[in-house]
């Protein structure tokens, strides 16, 4: 029996009727067409499907769409508008500058996980960064340039706050 859900996705209100068994990741990808969120395992182990739900990093294959009723969801498609106007967010910029991606498949999930980290801890050290992305697997980069990318973003956020103040 389909159920009604109302939520905000990338700051836009949406409402849908969904099957109760539909995972949030399939809702985002196949109902809303937001294919930037990837599926790597469907068992909440790889982190490719990480999105923000009410500001927290959540693996969207570990959650049903009906559980997202009433929440605010941010996906990779909506991350830039939370940062720089119309451009890239500092984390996205960091991944580009520091070669934090190769095949790019884990990248949206990594960017969302890193974004959640920097909101809680704006100046993480290396080990804190590594710890924060341990739920996100990458098979290409060896993670080192991802750590560099997050450091870049951290510095960028700090300097932009300073110049704003």
């Amino acid at each position: 029996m389909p159920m009604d859900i109302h939520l905000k996705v990338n700051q836009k209100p949406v409402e849908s009727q969904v099957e109760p068994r539909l995972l949030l990741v399939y809702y985002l990808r196949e109902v809303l067409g937001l294919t930037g969120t990837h599926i790597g395992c469907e068992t909440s182990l790889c982190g490719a499907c990480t999105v923000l739900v009410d500001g927290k990093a959540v693996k969207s294959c570990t959650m049903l769409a009906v559980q997202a009723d009433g929440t605010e969801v941010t996906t990779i498609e909506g991350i830039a508008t939370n940062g720089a106007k119309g451009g890239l967010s500092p984390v996205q910029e960091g991944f580009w500058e520091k070669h934090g991606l190769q095949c790019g498949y884990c990248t949206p999930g990594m960017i969302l996980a890193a974004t959640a980290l920097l909101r809680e801890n704006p100046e993480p050290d290396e080990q804190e960064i590594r710890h924060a992305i341990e739920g996100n697997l990458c098979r290409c980069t060896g993670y080192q340039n991802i750590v560099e990318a997050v450091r870049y973003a951290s510095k960028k956020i700090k300097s932009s706050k300073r110049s704003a103040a």
Partner: protein
Amino acid sequence: MASATRYIGKSMKRKEDPKLIQGMGHYIDDLNLPGMQAVVLVRSPHAHARIRSIDTAAARSAPGVLAVLTAEDIRDSIGMVPCAAQIPDMKNAARPVLAIDKVRMAGEAVAVVVASDRFLATDAANLVEVDYEPLPAVVDPEKAMSKDSPVIHEQYKDNVAYRWALEGGDLKKAFAKADKIVRQRMVNQRLIPVAMEPRGTMAEYLPGEKTLKVWSSTQIPHLLRTQIAAMIGAPEHSVQVITPEVGGGFGSKLNVYPEEALVAHLAMRLGKPMKWIETRRENFLVAIHGRDQIDDVEMAVKRDGTILGLKVRILADLGAYYQLLTPLIPTLTALMTSGCYKIPAIRVEITAVLTNKMATDAYRGAGRPEATYLVERMMDVVAKALGKDPVEFRRKNFPKPKEFPYTTPTGITYDSADYHRSLDLALKMSGYKKLRAEQAALRKKGRYIGIGVSTYVEICAMGPSSAMPAGGWESATVRIEPSGNVNILTGSSPHGQGQETSFAQIGADILGITPDVVNVVHGDTARVPYGIGTFGSRATAVGGTAVYKSLVKLREKLAAIAGHIMGEKPANLVFGDGRISSKSKKKSIPFGEAVGAAYAAKSLPPGIEPGLDATTFFEPTNFTFPFGTHICVVEVDVETGDVKLTKYVAVDDCGNVINPMLVEGQVHGGIVQAVGQALFEDAVYDDQGQLLSGELTDYAIPRAGDLPWMETARTVTPSPVNPLGVKGVGEAGTIGATPAIMNAVADALAPFGVTHLDMPAKRERVWSAIRAARRAK
């Protein structure tokens, strides 16, 4: 005519990234077509069983189901899965697209369900009833050879796929002369590639146009097109293969899989677009595996540390069926058993066996990590037996730079190298002497660190066609469009390596323009001339050279045209800053003016055709042989067996470099996959042939927290094999790093009398080895 180097050799940000970091790239599952049906496979839970019957009635009447098919329905329409490798007297172990009468591995597909969405297709797949008669499974490769083992392919008497030997030099004499013969058996365990994007295929048939379009997450679009056409009996010219973004390959997508042909066939047969997306569980079970060798190694040495000879017996577990290159992989191990040492005599004997498991094939490194591992572990084992320092033992047996090109007893010729230089740099960067002192001091305090060194050489830039099963050349077309924008069409279709950027850098330098006006097109057989693909660290050395040669052809043509316009000899012209100028800079025209003239065709010099389009099929004369030294430190907690990698230094020499940032990225990723093999990863089958480590919960790939900061550096020894002087770097890490880490683990455990430990060095194994060694004392 010349051009300045402005972009080659520079770390340029990637052109591929803006779409990928914004979630705007399209991987296979991001594509959809109207009316598309979902394809789901019904897979065998048994590793070895006879199929008595398959009842599809309930599945066929389930909601949304369009069709349910078994081997009976398709066996006359789809051929067997192709294998390009041929070894004399090899048994035929071809795989049918759907199992015929018998299944030979867990996960083998027995039926296919087509339904309106993936959830309904999965529901219906669960309703297919298969009556199996289980047979005893053949799992252990050594038991597979015994007379009383069940036989997997019943038309044969046994499970030995082939035996093959390679010998060079006088081995008998070498062993007779030796002061010492050291033996070691080592297991190179089975691995699973685990690209983050599982496989997937989509197909659409247009009956009016008689064209079949296949989208697949593959490393080899053109080879796939040829093979799909042959398998399903479609004319090749009417088949188009498109590879969208590919989310990692590591060799697992360098193949032709049953699902790819099946999805293409279903689109034609049922008249609707089809899509199959692999689940992670399927990816573990039925995408190719790697490694899986037992190596018995014997080295003959003189007391002074001179190596006289090497004998290796390889037992290779090929799995139940051949995939594209399965039987070939152990032979690559044989070729590289000389390592970076002068070994006068080598004999390698391969016994390859069939077991009830997934096929092994070309996982990142493909036979060469196995070679480097057995050679580099052996160097440490022998150094210890001789009471010599492992570094000096290595150095003593290096060929000197002036001895290159150097031909090994295995019959290959190393192009260029300076092994001493990379070793010296790595020793300096790691502070090797200080590390040894620190190790001695820590041991006194009851802390056990180990220092591991690996000096490796690898065979790359695959390769001359004479040595390749399906062509070793690569194609490139360069088109300068009337606007002056450039399209580079390459057969080396990438999946994360960054050719869209590195090839644009080459284009910009040769034509004296900027990389932003150079676009790289790949992964579409209708747009790109026939090519081979990206694997075997070949994209830059072979594909990049093809690009370079096509660019040079067009530069020559533009020089002729520009010279005609300016009244200057073409040889006196230089390309740079978007202009074509005389060497004196007195005469100069914009690049675009010469391009425009080529298309306007009003004042072309005699004999010059209009247009600017050049194609090269580059055939390399040899492989390339990158090399390097990796040094690392581990600390072993002897109470728990926990191994922590605490330091990593890598010096790699991949010849000239187009984009250092991309090279470093390849090195990092390769090292970490090697960390996976050394410390965590193991494809474990039980004695029933069930894959126990068949999910990310049980098969541990490295996480960010498992790793130290990697310090990397390069030496540069250009390759004489291609005009760019490049060698290739994609597999260096998985080749060089695994033995470095295991040498460090063995070094840490040396005080306990442990001389060798098989991979992965997981806690239980390390703890047990320490315990056993203590007991034996």
